[in-house]
């Protein structure tokens, strides 16, 4: 389960794997150009930034628009607070990420490669700089852009806007980045984990990658098992294995868990009993109306109040809004305030009903998907924690013990 492909080799905790060790372990980077797109198609690799879009198709749409001026933007913003995979990759396997980015640049004929790295990700930027300095094979101009430590900074159009104008706010689409992005050129925005997978697929082939998955799923993915920022375990799983397998492998006891936040703040709650057998496979999950997102598995203990945690997340998401669209600003704020009242067992009449209708109403009415993600998380909470919500609003009491002051669970 662990260390399958991306995390094979020296322990990530040991830090950066330098250029020499990287090439000694994996072999040199093949000189694939456009042919790589066909390989990626057959590998069934999907994006790991959250949208799970087929990578081969994405590269194809940029390659056919590029006239040597396309831009590759490696997205290492990692705006999702509980996720630690992108930072881990950039700090321990920077050359894999760079391999993927340079391969992309050759495949789509790019004139520039941008590494968009979260400013709050510890040594990630420093490590990537050192790794880039060790390379002599850049196929295009390279630059690093720091992503502000904000939730929406990792959004595709925000990343492009940041590279263009220095402000990481989403912009109205169309046109989408693959049509007009950095400098007005077709831009490939790809998560750093996805690019790392590309670095391996280019060397070992599409069949090798597909076989790493279980059943009909292809490949591996990094997931973060977490109960708050101070407590995160990143591990590599075979896609198609179950949520329960991953939590086991992270060394967590399955018994004490009440619910899982699948996909992080942008995902949804699932009751533990139902979650165990869910496959870690974005296609299969989507068929049930769920999403793997960026692979965060948030763990809610049996004696933690899901309503309280949901209220805190909703407040955070409202504050992290780009503040550009009325429905998102006012809608998420109203939802968060009502949820806080419900969590504190001091609801106003109709608070619960209004949260539901606000959440349903806000979807699709922002320039980006931020309000949709928040609404989805809140709606899932009302399903999974239904009895707890009722208890808070009608009996004005919480069935869980009060949170311990200074506790670090569900903090970020």
């Amino acid at each position, binding site marked *: 389960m662990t260390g399958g492909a991306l995390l094979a080799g020296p322990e990530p905790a040991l830090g950066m794997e330098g250029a020499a060790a990287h090439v000694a372990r994996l072999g040199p980077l093949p000189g694939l150009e456009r042919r790589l797109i066909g390989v990626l198609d057959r590998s069934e690799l999907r994006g790991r930034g959250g949208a799970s879009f087929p990578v081969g198709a994405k590269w194809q749409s940029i390659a056919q628009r590029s006239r040597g001026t396309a831009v590759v933007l490696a997205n290492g913003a990692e705006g999702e607070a509980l996720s630690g995979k992108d930072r881990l990759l950039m700090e321990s396997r920077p050359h894999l990420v760079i391999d993927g980015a340079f391969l992309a640049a050759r495949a789509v004929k790019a004139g520039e490669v941008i590494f968009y790295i979260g*400013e709050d990700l510890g040594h990630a930027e420093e490590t990537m700089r050192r790794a880039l300095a060790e390379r002599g094979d850049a196929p295009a101009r390279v630059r690093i852009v*720091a992503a*502000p430590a904000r939730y929406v900074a990792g959004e595709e159009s925000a990343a492009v806007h940041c590279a263009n104008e*220095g402000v990481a*706010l989403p912009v109205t689409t169309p046109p989408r980045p693959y049509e007009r992005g950095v400098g007005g050129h077709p831009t490939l925005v790809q998560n750093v984990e996805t690019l790392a997978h590309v670095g391996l697929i280019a060397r070992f082939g599409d069949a090798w990658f597909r076989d790493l998955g279980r059943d009909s799923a292809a490949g591996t993915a990094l997931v973060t098992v977490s109960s708050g920022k101070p407590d995160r375990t990143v591990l590599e799983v075979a896609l198609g294995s179950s949520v329960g397998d991953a939590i086991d492998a992270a060394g967590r006891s399955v018994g004490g868990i009440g619910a899982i936040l699948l996909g992080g703040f942008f995902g949804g709650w699932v009751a533990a009993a139902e979650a165990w057998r869910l496959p870690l496979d974005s296609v299969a999950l989507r068929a049930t109306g769920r999403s793997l997102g960026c692979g965060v598995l948030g763990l809610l203990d049996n004696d933690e109040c899901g309503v309280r945690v949901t209220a805190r997340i909703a407040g955070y998401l409202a504050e992290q809004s780009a*503040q*550009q669209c009325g429905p998102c600003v006012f809608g998420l704020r109203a939802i968060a305030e009502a949820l806080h009242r419900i969590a504190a067992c001091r609801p106003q009449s109709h608070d619960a009903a209004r949260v539901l209708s606000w959440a349903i109403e806000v979807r699709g009415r922002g320039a980006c998907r931020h309000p949709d993600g928040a609404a989805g998380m809140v709606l899932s909470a009302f399903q999974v924690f239904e009895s707890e919500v009722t208890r808070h609003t009608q009996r004005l009491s919480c069935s869980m013990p009060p949170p311990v002051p200074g506790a670090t669970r569900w903090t970020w």
Partner: protein
Amino acid sequence: MNSQVLWYTTRAAGVVSLILFTAVVILGQLARLRVASASWPRFLSADLHRNLSLLSLVFLAIHIVTAVVDPFTSLGIAPVLVPFGSAYRRFWLGLGTLALEITLALVITSLLRTRVGLRAWRLIHWLAYAAWPIAVLHGLGTGTDALSAWSLGVTIVCVVAVIAVTLWRLIAAPSDPLSGARRLAVERHRTIPQ
């Protein structure tokens, strides 16, 4: 057509133009202030603003044509298009020409707003705040009876009304409910320059 009739017509059309343009400016402010009620829907300020401005152009045209053909003024076509190009009351007439040209720019860009784009349209529309006072000064300076009681009275009412609405607009909160939040968010989402 004798000069007397032409002169009266020029004068009257000019006053009507001024009153209509004053209403247009006020309606523009009301739209910006989002004044609305059950009997005054939002689109009313915008629509009246547009329709009255087109109506004022009609009276403006009458005002200009009668002034040009009036043998007393012996204006040619030129001063209509070239500011300060007439021998007759050069400065005050020139102001009128200036106001006319700005007004034409306002109307044309507004009619073609979707093609011109929002930013360009907005920039040019700010010139309305120049066109209106210039028109008022033109009226005060060119009419031989400009300082007569009724003419002055009409002008004063128009000026007071525009000043009042403009003050109201300056005091009122910005019409974008998110303006403060947007600016803060931009600062929070800036990247550190590399």
